[in-house]
């Protein structure tokens, strides 16, 4: 089979991207960027990314359009490019132009009531949410063009790669703390919701196959769990359609509602990540909600993904349990091959995640202290040391400081003309935040802090890359969520799924708010 279609679509996308890069490098574009407030954040990537992908689109687009394609690997992989470029083009347009324009309009409308937040912040209308929405609109109104379908399916690879790479950004302490918390929360919620679905199904006299497929979907990780469990519990086609339709509606609704509630309750990144990771039925929408809550950082995503991975690790266990349960309920003579079920259903990308974590722990990518993005290093150039006048000014206000540790840190700073340790840096920041000294001296302290705090360029780029992978994956996933599929929600699964889904979301919110610390 030949996959490539002779269409100019990829070439056109490449030219459009090159057009953005060319415009971004001229002065004429600056007023727009200043108006949108994106000059500082996206100025560099606006020139480099469309240039790189535009060139790829231009050359490969010419070949796709005019070349003679023969069956083989090159044809297979090349056929994915138009779809990939379409997703990227949508993601770029939304990130650089549409989302900032929405923010500008929202700011013009003013803050909402007592919330001290603009509408777009409150509703989480950032480039991730708008990108997913654009994907959903594209597939349901215009349909995914034939030339893009092969590439759109590749979006799940973007998500998997994003999760694998994310493995490099966890410290052992983070992984231990988040892992403990997620095993506790996910363990009880997965087992609880599977049990609740089975109990409700028995009371409502739902067939065993329906109960089995619904409990996997609602209890573990949504559509993926339904797909894994359906053949095992011999679900009928209508039962699969009902279950997936119900989960899709719940997942999409939660992806938009969770960030709003998180913003209204001023949840921390850790709390929101834990809540989204536990309460959202569908695992794809967990990443969407986490990035909707915190679009320009990955702290929430890191927490949510640990919860997601824990959930995914429960998948083979639950499928195995359901297989044994189904065989017993139906009094069937079939044998359950335990080893085969566990091995086949084990999500391989989790091994990639663990491998990345192990590799990064060896310091192969960057020194350990760089992984948080900012790191302390006081080996600085002489011109960055505090001058005599600045040291004198600080010395003159020394009597304003009462705490012993603050006094000591300040004395060390004055004596050495630079902050001497990470602990001293934290104490000095405390003095700045408490505004104990005059404004001028506060500025000197800020300068001293800035001189020893460095941004790890490598890690910053890595974080941005991961965000792009998730944005790519989620926009592509949005392009695969159809109203036709969601319309299949109904029957008893909608009732049972609704009850369990709501109970899971509310109960996990209460538990997270009461028991989960603001920070890890």
């Amino acid at each position: 089979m030949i996959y490539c279609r002779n269409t100019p679509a990829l070439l056109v996308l490449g030219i459009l991207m090159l057009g953005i890069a060319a415009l971004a490098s001229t002065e004429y574009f600056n007023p727009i960027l200043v108006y949108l407030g994106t000059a500082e954040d996206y100025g560099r990537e606006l020139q480099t990314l469309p240039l790189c992908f535009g060139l790829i689109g231009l050359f490969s687009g010419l070949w796709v359009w005019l070349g003679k394609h023969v069956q083989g690997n090159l044809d297979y992989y090349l056929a994915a490019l138009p779809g990939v470029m379409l997703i990227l083009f949508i993601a770029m347009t939304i990130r650089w132009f549409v989302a900032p324009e929405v923010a500008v309009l929202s700011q013009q409308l003013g803050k909402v009531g007592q919330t001290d937040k603009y509408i777009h912040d409150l509703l989480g209308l950032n480039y991730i949410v708008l990108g997913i929405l654009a994907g959903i609109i594209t597939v349901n109104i215009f349909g995914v063009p034939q030339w893009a379908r092969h590439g759109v399916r590749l979006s799940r690879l973007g998500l998997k790669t994003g999760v694998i790479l994310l493995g490099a950004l966890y410290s052992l302490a983070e992984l231990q703390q988040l892992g403990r918390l997620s095993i506790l929360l996910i363990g009880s919620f997965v087992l609880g919701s599977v049990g609740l679905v089975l109990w409700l199904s028995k009371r409502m006299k739902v067939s065993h196959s329906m109960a089995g497929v619904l409990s996997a979907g609602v209890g573990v990780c949504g559509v993926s769990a339904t797909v894994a469990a359906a053949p095992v519990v011999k679900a009928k086609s209508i039962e699969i359609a009902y279950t997936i339709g119900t989960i899709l509606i719940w997942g999409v609704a939660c992806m938009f509602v969770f960030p709003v509630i998180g913003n209204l309750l001023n949840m921390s990144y850790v709390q929101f990540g834990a809540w989204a990771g536990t309460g959202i039925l569908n695992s794809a929408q967990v990443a969407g909600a986490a990035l909707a809550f915190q679009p320009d950082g990955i702290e929430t995503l890191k927490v949510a993904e640990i919860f997601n991975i824990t959930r995914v690790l429960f998948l083979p266990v639950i499928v195995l349990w359901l297989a044994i349960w189904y065989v017993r309920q139906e009094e069937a003579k079939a044998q359950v091959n335990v080893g085969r079920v566990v091995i086949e259903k084990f999500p391989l990308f989790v091994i990639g995640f663990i491998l990345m974590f192990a590799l990064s722990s060896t310091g192969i990518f960057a020194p350990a202290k760089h992984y948080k993005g900012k790191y302390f290093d006081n080996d600085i150039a002489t011109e960055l040391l505090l001058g005599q006048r600045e040291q004198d000014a600080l010395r003159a206000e020394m009597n304003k400081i009462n705490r012993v540790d603050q006094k000591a840190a300040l004395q060390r700073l004055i004596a050495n003309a630079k902050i001497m340790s990470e602990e001293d840096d934290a104490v000095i920041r405390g003095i700045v935040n408490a505004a104990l000294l005059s404004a001028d001296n506060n500025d000197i302290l800020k300068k001293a802090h800035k001189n020893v705090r460095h941004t790890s360029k490598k890690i910053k780029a890595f974080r941005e890359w991961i965000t792009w992978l998730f944005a790519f994956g989620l926009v592509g996933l949005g392009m695969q969520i159809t109203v036709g599929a969601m319309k299949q929600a109904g029957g008893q699964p909608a009732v049972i799924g609704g009850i369990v889904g709501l109970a899971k979301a509310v109960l996990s919110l209460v538990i997270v708010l009461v028991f989960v610390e603001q920070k890890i």
Partner: protein
Amino acid sequence: MSRVLIASHGTVGAQAAECAALEWCKSGDNLHHIFIIADFWPDLTGDDWLNNGCVRNEYRLYLEETLYDEYKQTFLRLERSCKKRGISLDSRFVFGRTDKVFETAVQHDRYDRIFIGSRRPSGVGGIRDCLSSKKILQHYSSLLMIVAYPNECIRMAQ
């Protein structure tokens, strides 16, 4: 000798249409049956991102088998009834958008009468993918029979 078309998803409502068509047909008539596999099935896995290829493949094969079994059941039921009544049966299953499949079938051949099931009453289970009778009436000149749900024939069969 009449040519009759039934388009169905194999639901209870469609079975009512099958029964009505069989009642109407006389010996020697041609009954054309199209079993439509709705095009939303691939979309149902669109959101699955974490399964391995072998899990997705196992699901695909299982679903194909299940849908084919549903078709086979409908086909065998119809074949039995047609044999009894001396009606010749031409049955096939087609994947696609329900209205498009129907449109292609009607454009390709001329039928004296078309039988479809009606919208099922609320609260009754089944896939959500109906043929719009408004569209059919606007575009086709054949006699269209929309069979009420569920009719006596189905009750008797059940």
